[in-house]
């Protein structure tokens, strides 16, 4: 059980690390939204499943309810995080930001 939980947590950590490095290194606003939107959502999925399994060490009704709540947070993050990223993209398009093309200065 501990091995599975550790594996899931480190998978989530790899996804979060990729998201953070992508936010730093990508050249413009629209391409930065790609790691921010997808990798953070997937890292949250792995970490929440791992933590919900780790919570079930002492099996009782209370810990089962807590694990159910953690899964509920994950479902909410899966709905809300792409919606928030889409709202940011919409703001950028409406404000008239132009996408980066090859040869431009990195900004």
């Amino acid at each position, binding site marked *: 059980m501990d091995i599975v939980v550790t594996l899931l947590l480190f998978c989530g950590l790899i996804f979060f690390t990729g998201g953070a490095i992508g*936010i730093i290194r990508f050249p413009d*606003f629209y391409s*930065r939204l790609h790691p921010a939107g997808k990798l953070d959502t997937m890292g949250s999925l792995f970490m929440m499943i791992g933590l919900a399994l780790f919570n079930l060490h002492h099996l009782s009704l209370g810990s089962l309810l807590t694990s159910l709540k953690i899964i509920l947070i994950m479902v909410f*993050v899966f709905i809300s995080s792409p919606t*928030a990223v889409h709202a940011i993209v919409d*703001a950028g398009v409406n404000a008239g930001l132009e996408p980066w093309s090859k040869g431009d200065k990195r*900004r």
Partner: protein
Amino acid sequence: MNHVILFIGLFMSLLMVISLYRAIFGPTVLDRMIGANAIGSKTVVLLIIIGFGYRRVDMFVDIALAYALLNFIAVLAASRYFQKRKDLYDELS
């Protein structure tokens, strides 16, 4: 197992510091919003890890759920506000 949980929490704080660079030095307002959103989505997981550290997960899960709701509403409201600005390019130069 507690050492693994502690290591994960510390490493995630380091990743939040990396995202904070974009939230401070981002060339436009929307870049700063990306940094803030990334920090918020990491905080939800970090709150549950802190709960395991204190052995009070049942309490910290509710705080994490409230924080996820608040983060979503804040990003949505801020992006609705900033889409009316047409002078985002002035900050780049």
